[in-house]
Each structure stands twice: as C-alpha cells, then as structure tokens.
C-alpha cells in the first residue's frame, strides 16, 4: 500500500526514532543491570572477606623464565583492616639476601592515591615512595605491584558478563575496569566461584586490549570457620611465556596488631 501522505511519513520516522530510543534505553538498562550485578558480586566478595581484623602470612615466589630457569623470593606479609578505608600492609623481604630486611609499607585508600614508604636497612632509612608505579613488575616476577596490594571494591568499575563453569565449578564472571590512575590493565576478567564468592581466576588485558596474563588461584582453606584464604597463585604471562608461582603459607589471623604497628616511624623494628 502506497503511503506517501506527510502524516504517514512522519509516523514512520517517529516509529524509527522511538524504536531507536527504546533500543538505546534497553541497552543502557541492561548495561546498568550488568554493572549493578557486577558490583553486587564484588561487594559480596568483599563482605565475606572482611572482619578478620589483621593477618600475617609467609609468601614464597618462584619465578620461572620461558626456558625454565627459576629464582626464589621469600617475604612476610602483615596486614590490618582500617575502619572505612583500605587496609594497611607491610611486606618484609627475607630473600634474596641483598634485599633482606627491606620493608614496604602501604596504606591503601578507597578513593585517593595509596601512601607508600620503603625501609632500607643498609641506611636505616624510611623513605617515602611514589605509589604510582602500580603497573610495574614486582621483584621481576609476573605479578605487578597492583596485583599484590590490598584489593578495594572502590578501585574498579564492574560489569557482570555471565555465569559459566570453570573446571566444573559454577562461577560468576565479572569484568573489572580500574578507575585508579596508571593501572597496567584495560580490564581484568574475574571468575568468582558461585557458592563462596572466592576469586579463582583472573585474565589481565593490557591497554592494547590483548590478553597479557592469567592467574589461577588455588588451594583455598577456611580460617576461623569463616574466611577462605588462598594457598597458591599460578600466574602466566602469555606474551613472554614466563610464569610465577606464589605460595602463601602460615596464615595467622587476629594477631592483635594495632594501627601503630603500621606507622612509617617504627618500620625499622620489623627487620
């Protein structure tokens, strides 16, 4: 049927416009829903992971080159929760020998730049350092500084992708986009296991949107009948074929640390 009346023409273009608007609206709605759901999953993960007060652990890193050459790094980690802000943590190096006694203190913050200091035992000096080198490799490993620090919900924006099984385990898959400056990643794709909201795998994408690294998080154990803490991280760099195994042992929760144990003055007591 010919419909060449002006009225018809208008209705047709109106319908087009309305359809387009609806389409955009619905996409936005779906998007908002995906963001909300992603954030909700991250919040639930954070909620289940909060309330331990403080913990300490031993970290053993094995760095592996593409040819299979290995190097070992040993550290002690001390961490305390801070009411309404990110955790404070101290990393003390035990191996290699030339950095033994060096301690890295970080006050992570939810909404502003982290504060960092390093204690250099050879000079007995506590030095303020810039916290913007988040993207760099940690001690030559495949972990970046930003992979090791305390993970705050507020440091990312979220998008729920799907529910899918990983190694037979049902998971929530969520994309995390860093909202802090100088991240080495355009996004992280995170797998949370469905019953316990434990992070079991992360794919890291660089700024060219290419898959850079993958970490598998294994050997979760339950502490204080509540907190699931991992015993092993397997990080693989897809570009270089280098890998790093991080073992975390001797978890101790609720040691009774105080905020004072995490002050830059007195960091030399740690060695």
């Amino acid at each position: 049927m010919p419909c060449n009346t002006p009225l018809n023409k208008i209705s047709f273009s109106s319908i087009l416009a309305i359809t387009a608007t609806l389409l955009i609206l619905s996409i936005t709605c779906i998007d908002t829903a995906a963001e909300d759901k992603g954030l909700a999953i991250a919040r639930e993960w954070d909620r289940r992971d909060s309330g331990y007060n403080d913990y300490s652990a031993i970290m053993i890193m094995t760095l592996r080159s593409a040819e299979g050459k290995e190097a070992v790094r040993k550290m002690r980690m001390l961490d305390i929760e801070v009411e309404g802000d990110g955790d404070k943590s101290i990393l003390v190096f035990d191996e290699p020998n030339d950095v033994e006694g060096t301690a890295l203190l970080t006050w992570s913050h939810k909404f502003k730049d982290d504060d960092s200091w390093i204690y250099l035992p050879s000079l007995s000096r506590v030095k303020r350092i810039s916290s913007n080198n988040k993207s760099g490799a940690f001690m030559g490993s495949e972990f970046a500084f930003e992979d090791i620090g305390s993970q705050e919900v507020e440091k990312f924006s979220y998008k729920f992708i799907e529910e899918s099984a990983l190694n037979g385990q049902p998971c929530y898959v969520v994309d995390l986009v860093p909202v802090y400056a100088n991240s080495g990643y355009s996004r992280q794709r995170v797998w949370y296991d469905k019953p316990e909201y434990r992070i079991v795998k992360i794919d890291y994408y660089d700024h060219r949107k290419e898959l850079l690294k993958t970490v598998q998080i294994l050997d979760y154990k339950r502490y204080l009948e509540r907190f699931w803490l991992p015993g092993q991280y397997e990080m693989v760099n897809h570009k270089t074929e280098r890998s790093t195994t991080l073992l975390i042992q001797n978890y101790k929760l609720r040691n009774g640390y105080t905020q004072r144990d995490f002050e830059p003055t007195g960091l030399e007591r740690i060695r």
Partner: protein
Amino acid sequence: MLRNCVLLLLLVISTAAHAGFDSAKYKLEVTPELRLFPDSPAYSGQTDNCSLSISALGKVDMEWNDGLTKLAIYPFARLDSEDSERTHADLREFNLRQRTGDFDWLIGVGKVFWGTTESLHLVDIINQTDAVESIDGEDKLGQPMLSLAWAIPVGVLSGFILPYFRERTLPGENGRFRAMIPYDTDSAIYESSHKQHHIDSALRWQYSGGGIDIGLSQFLGTAREPRFIFNQDQTKLLPVYDLIRQTGLDFNFVSGSWILKLEALYQSNRIENFKAAVGGFEYTIPTASFDAPEIGLLAEYCWDNRGSDSLSIYQNDLFLGLRIGLNDIAGSEMLAGITQDMQHSSRYISIDASRRIENIGRIALKLRVFNDISTNDPLYTYKRDSYLQIEFTFYFSGEISKEKDHGR
C-alpha cells in the same frame, strides 16, 4: 657512664638470653672493592692509581616475647690496601629494643636517620659520619644512646640521650679525599671540657599521614661535622668539635607522581650562627605498562646562608638526578646525579649502578667525578680524586627459630 651502659646492656641481654629467644637470624656480608683513580694524586704520599679493600658486616638479630624485645649486634670491619685510617672497625649496632604499650625503648649502640632529600642529608645528626667509607656521607658510625619513642595521638615523639661522642673518621696521609695538609685525628679539640663524654641530647616529633611526612627536631650537643685548625707547626689539621644547638625540619608532600621534599635547619654555635636548606622534588614517570622500567627524575636546590665561607660544599648548588629501576629478576637499578655549583664552576657527578647475581650476591659500580672544580670550593683539594669503584657483596645467612613467627 659508657661502661655502665655496656654493663647494663650485657646484664639485660644475659637475662633475656636465659629466658630463651623466639628466633635468631645471622647474616654476614663480605664486600671486596676495587677503586681506580685515573688522575695521579695531588699530594705526596697519597694513594696512586688504585686501591684494594675488603669489608665485612656481621648481623645478629634476636627476638623474645613475641617480637616485643629485640636484640641487634652488627659489627663492621674494613681492611684497606693503601690508607691505614680506612682500615678500621666499628660496632654499627649493639642494642636492645623493648616495646611497652605506647613506648619503644632502645639502649645501646644504635643508628637513627632523619631526613628526606637525596643530594644532601642536612637534618640527620644523631650518628657520626664514617667518612673514610665513602665521600657521600651515607655511612655512619654506631652511636651509644638511650632513646624513647612515644606514640602520641598525633605522630611520634622521640627523646635521645647520647652519652658518648664519636669522632669523625678521616682519611690518613696515604688516603685520597684529604686536604693538602694531613689530618691528625688523635688530637681532636673540643669546646666542652667533658670532651667525648659530653652528654648530648635530642628531641624529635614526627608525623605521617594524608600524603605528608613531617619531622621537627632539636639537637643540643657536640657538632658532628668538625671544623679544622692548624697545629702549632702547621704540619697537621686538627678537627675541632664545637657545641651546637640545632633545630631541623624535614618535610614531604606527596601528590600523584610528585614528591616534594624539604629539609631546613638553624644552627647556633660559637663561631657563626647559620641557616641552611635543601628542597626539591622527585617525579616518577607514570607508565601504565607491565614491562616498562620505573624512571624517576630528581631536582634539588641546596642553600646555606654562609655562602662561600660555608664548610659545606652545598652552599648554592643545584642537583639533578635520574633514577632507573628495571624491576627485573636481577633487581637492576641506577641513580645518576650531577651537582652544579651555581656560584663557582664546580661540578660533581655521581653514578651508582647495581644488579643482583642470583644466589651469590650483588655487583655495584660507583663513579665519582670532580669536574672543573674552582679554587675557592671546599672540593678543590679533591679535584684529582675522581674514581671508579667496583664492588661485589657476598651474602651468607642462617636462622634459628622455635616457631615461625612473622614479627611485628
């Protein structure tokens, strides 16, 4: 006083040792070193074109009471092929620390650092400089002390009683880095009639948080930096240690990639009261890449109101530096700096580079160049002492622990 302190310390240690320690760590660092001087020496008797040296630093750290009580014993010794004054030994640390509530006690020989700038450590005063170790002033002698740090609601307040003064080590007749006339370190002159036994004291308040670090300090006692006078027949330079009163400030402000730094002091003494300051920034280049090295740019300006009369070589100087950390397995790093005197032509260049040799130790290269040194600069007598140093540090360590504890 000193003997009593040592006795008390030994008593406390033997009591604590009797109680049985939780953990003990032993470490030994051995560093052979070669220095090459391209220029022949300026004064007769000085080291020719090369010197060989070896140093050892032992470290024993013990813990009791869940880490609340700690003992550190760090002896140090060096043998030098050329300069008998550089062949020396020191107890870098020998102290007992105790944490009780909001208080941290330390008794014994300790090491304390105050300050923030890179080119110059202006405010730092507790420990004497071990000047035969290096010309940078980074190496310090152990200081006998009783100190108490009190965590108050805003920051930490620390008090120090320093019952014994350590004289600065200075190069001997055969050493480089000396004046035309050799030093006589055995005949130091003191303003205080108590000489080395004058009881020095210091107070410091320090606060960190919200992107700033601030330290305010007051020191009363014997100057760490000597001035020099001739002996009677003008054949030797004698170090003179005056009594001083010094107020210091050190400050950091952090914002994103920038750290702004400032150190300032006011000193009164019997010769000439003076003010000095050093300030500048460290800028870390943002990378947002996993493979990129960490690169820092530094700029600092040093000022002293005594101008050319200053003992300090940093009276009106601009320092520019470049720091590179590769974040690689070898932990390769480099710091290069140039200090340009804005008044005279003098230029001082330093480059430090080092990397780890896995499971063995660390190799380091240090280059120091005195360039175009003007005749009225305190550095003038060093003008032929540019050098390249190659050193390798071997590490040995062991540990005994009853139960793996993570310390606090």
